[in-house]
């Protein structure tokens, strides 16, 4: 009788453990659909883009050459999840502050309102440096189509608080423009994993 109670307790507690340890040695997968073209595997790859950041600097794929970067979508007057997601982005920023190979990219989905000066104020108020963390605006349709490429939900919705609906996911992209990992910016444990995934990517070289 007593043994069975202990067994039950053991099962109960061990079920809480994350069963990820066996995957730690494996490389991160390349996410998205893949195609076979002329016998070669073609992975989902982030297409060309060009936006403008809080310093009026043009930000495009060349900005992220030989770097890994973490992406999110937000808007500055967002009354809901954005500050929490930004708090998690700040964890990425703080952890890799001294490592030039890691960059952050935040897209506004409220292009009419979030001008360059407004993004500048926002970045200043987050107390982050412009060469590490780019807050970009640009062509609205292009921003929304980029969200799709990063597998992030972003849409205009008059019924949503603030007028926009979007997910608070952080997406990790490697230097070959492939999406390699993601984590919910509302869940600090998922961001813990994302932080170790970034280190893994850096070790890939």
């Amino acid at each position, binding site marked *: 009788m007593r043994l069975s109670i202990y067994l039950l307790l053991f099962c109960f507690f061990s079920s809480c453990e994350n069963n990820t340890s066996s995957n730690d040695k494996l490389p991160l997968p390349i996410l998205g659909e893949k195609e076979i073209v002329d016998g070669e595997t073609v992975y989902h790859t982030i297409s060309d883009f060009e936006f403008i950041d809080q310093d009026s600097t043009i930000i495009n794929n060349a900005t992220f050459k030989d770097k890994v970067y973490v992406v999110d979508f937000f808007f500055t*007057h967002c009354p809901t999840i954005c500050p929490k997601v930004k708090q998690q982005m700040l964890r990425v920023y703080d952890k890799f502050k001294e490592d030039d190979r890691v960059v952050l990219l935040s897209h506004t989905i409220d292009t009419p309102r979030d001008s360059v000066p407004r993004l500048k104020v926002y970045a200043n*108020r987050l107390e982050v440096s412009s060469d590490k963390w780019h807050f970009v605006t640009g062509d609205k349709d292009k921003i929304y189509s980029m969200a799709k490429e990063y597998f992030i939900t972003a849409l205009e919705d008059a019924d949503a608080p603030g007028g926009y609906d979007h997910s608070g996911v952080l997406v990790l992209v490697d230097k070959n423009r492939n999406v390699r990992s993601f984590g919910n910016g509302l869940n600090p444990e998922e961001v813990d994993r994302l932080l170790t995934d970034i280190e893994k990517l850096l070790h890939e070289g």
Partner: protein
Amino acid sequence: MKVKYLILSFSILFVVFACQSNPYGEGKRIYTAYCASCHMEDGQGLKSLVPPLAKSDYLAQNQDKLACIINKGLNGSIIVNGKEYNQPMAGIPGLNSTKLTNVINYINHAWGNNAGYTKIQDVESALKACE
């Protein structure tokens, strides 16, 4: 055998009472649902973007305005603990005076705050004044 039951019933009672130790249960639930996404669970706010509620001099000095701020939101620059903040805050018009009172009393006593108690009558008259 009797001792066993005694221990068992005491431990059940302990668990039941331990769960009821927070007197601001509803206030905390409202805070988590509506406020924590910007002011954070620990009331610390976010850098220079969102002001803290924990150990905030603005909170202590503007007790009479809290009901209106939560209900209508806040625009423009404010100074909190010597730091300037200027991020619009959205109001939460859906909270009735009971809920407002509960969330104010939670904030007033969370994270080491000791900003006093707010009565529902104070909240109701404050709401009338800001309409």
